């Protein structure tokens, strides 16, 4: 099947969900100086969260299409933008929880979080390296500021410093990749045809672009920043940055990968490729891409090993989530690399399992850390394992939702995380990588061990009083909605690739898994 070209849509209609969130953020930023401290933490989060929810609802009416070859929306992108907006709403709730408890003097973090959500949504919608770069920087710059939110904390300074310097360097590396890709193709669009004689330049450019994105998603060997940045940030920001940056980064990686598959197979006919497209890989394209997908597989395996084993030793939930996010990045690299690998000459590249895993991971991460923010009591240091002990019994609601999110991380049914892992392992076996599947499965069990440790601690009967300083309505609603989504989305695995209005539909994910 040749790659389809997406229809053109109007800019305003396509960007409506992002614009709603942006307006919410700007309104919060503009009204912030006129409110007293208590009102800031009462009204501003509602403004931003409602804007995010309005954006989420407006996705139902947003057309499928592309604008000027820069931004695009299709079924998969719609779901990923939805995951970003949902994570933003959940993150805002957690931020309100933490900031009103600390009586934080400013209200601008809510606006910053909205802007970071806007940046990540643009990264998802990007169909061009320039749009991707702008989205990446909007998201990154806002998140740097959010990481350094606790201005009087030395560990916050250190997390911010490391994240900023490394982030700035990898942004520059990404940009150099953009420049080389432009030099080789004469265009910054994904999958533009190469000018004869400049194939090596294109290869180098793509390598640098992918390097920059691998840093953003925190895959080995570019994961060194994540534990420190995650620990330096307030609990609610940790969940937010863990989910939206990963969604943006992997959406961009997947889009570039899909376009490279189409271009290498000669089936790219120009225009914008939908993320849920099924690209038929020719033998020539497979030969070109196979070394790269082997690199992704190896990086993925190393990420899973380092992430899971390092997480075992952690006592702070934020650090634990940081290492578990490295492991999850590894599983997602599997989902990225596998479709290209086949026993025979040709295969169909369809990244449905990556998108599915990504949506599930994003919602569960944002929800879990917001629940921890509500459970951790008077200070953010309350996220230590021994301080959380028994909190599930004193606050059964948060205990229950946190259990659902952690079950999703560990890959237990009936959650979206289970099906996400199942699709990846099924694909590994289907492509003949049985040994890899067994090894990864064993590593997933190592991963399950530390999630279990967390749950045992959460529900243990130590009989402490509630550490919580109370939780807001918004926190309760958003985490409850996230928990329901984590369970309900498991029932419909093909929802992310279900054909959009004007697009010819690829096969559902499950059918693609058959060996």
């Amino acid at each position: 099947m040749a790659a389809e070209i997406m229809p053109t849509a109007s800019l305003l209609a396509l960007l409506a969900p992002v614009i709603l969130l942006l307006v919410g953020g700007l309104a919060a930023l503009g009204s912030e100086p006129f409110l007293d401290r208590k009102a800031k933490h009462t009204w501003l989060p509602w403004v931003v969260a409602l804007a995010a929810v309005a954006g989420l609802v407006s996705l139902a009416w947003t057309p499928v299409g592309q604008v000027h070859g820069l931004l695009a929306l299709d079924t998969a992108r719609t779901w990923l933008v939805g995951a970003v907006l949902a994570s933003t709403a959940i993150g805002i709730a957690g931020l309100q929880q933490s900031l009103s408890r600390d009586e934080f003097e400013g209200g601008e973090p809510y606006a910053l979080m909205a802007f970071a959500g806007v940046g990540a949504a643009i990264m998802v919608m990007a169909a061009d390296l320039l749009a991707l770069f702008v989205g990446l920087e909007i998201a990154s710059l806002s998140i740097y500021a959010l990481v350094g939110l606790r201005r009087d904390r030395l560990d916050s300074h250190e997390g911010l410093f490391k994240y900023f310097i490394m982030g700035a360097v990898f942004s520059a590396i990404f940009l150099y990749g953009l420049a080389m890709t432009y030099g080789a193709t004469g265009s910054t669009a994904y999958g533009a045809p190469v000018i004869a004689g400049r194939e090596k330049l294109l290869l180098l450019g793509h390598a640098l672009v992918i390097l920059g994105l691998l840093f953003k998603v925190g895959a080995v060997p570019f994961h060194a920043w994540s534990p420190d940045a995650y620990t330096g940030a307030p609990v609610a920001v940790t969940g937010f940055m863990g989910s939206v940056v990963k969604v943006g980064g992997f959406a961009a990686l997947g889009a570039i990968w899909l376009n490279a598959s189409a271009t290498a197979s000669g089936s790219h006919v120009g225009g914008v490729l939908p993320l849920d497209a099924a690209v038929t890989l020719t033998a020539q394209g497979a030969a070109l891409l196979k070394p790269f997908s082997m690199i992704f597989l190896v990086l993925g395996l190393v990420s899973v090993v380092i992430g899971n084993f390092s997480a075992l030793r952690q006592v702070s939930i934020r650090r634990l989530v940081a290492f578990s996010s490295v492991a999850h990045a590894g599983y997602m690299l599997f989902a990225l690399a596998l479709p290209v690998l086949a026993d025979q000459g040709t295969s169909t590249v369809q990244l449905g399992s990556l998108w599915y895993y990504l949506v599930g991971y994003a919602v569960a991460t944002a929800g879990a850390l917001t629940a921890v923010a509500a459970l951790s009591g008077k200070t953010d240091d309350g996220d230590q394992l021994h301080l959380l002990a028994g909190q599930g019994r004193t606050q059964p609601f948060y205990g229950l939702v946190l259990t659902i999110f952690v079950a999703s991380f560990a890959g237990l049914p009936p959650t979206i995380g289970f099906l996400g892992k199942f699709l990846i392992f099924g694909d590994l076996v289907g492509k003949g990588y049985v040994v890899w599947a067994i090894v990864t499965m064993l590593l997933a069990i190592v991963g399950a061990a530390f999630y279990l440790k967390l749950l045992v601690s959460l529900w243990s009967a130590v009989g402490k009083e509630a550490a919580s300083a109370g939780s807001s309505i918004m926190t309760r609603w958003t985490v409850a909605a996230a928990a329901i989504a984590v369970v309900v989305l498991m029932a419909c695995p093909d929802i992310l690739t279900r054909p959009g209005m004007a697009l010819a539909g690829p096969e559902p994910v499950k059918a693609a898994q058959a060996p």
Partner: protein
Amino acid sequence: MDTIDPIHVQVLAAILFALGLTAVVTRRNIFFLLMGVELMLNAVNLSLIGFARTLPAAQGSLTGHIVPLFTIAVAAAEACVGLAMVICITRGKDTVDADAFADMKE
């Protein structure tokens, strides 16, 4: 040799980029790290403009002139956040030595 070939521009850009990267990796003063990052971004701008001159006319080389405008804006915003970061962290530790910020355990 009295003309500048496109390749010379690319070599210069690569050297500047490498210099910037070296500065970030080896220097310990935070301000030099920020300057290194700026140098890398400006090297990329040079590279983009250099590439724009090598492209065949059919490709329409305007992109190479426009992308640097975006980069300049982004670099300014990045410097802004970077200097705000320096102010924030020097209040905590009263030093601009990068090695002072390496206390977190593995």
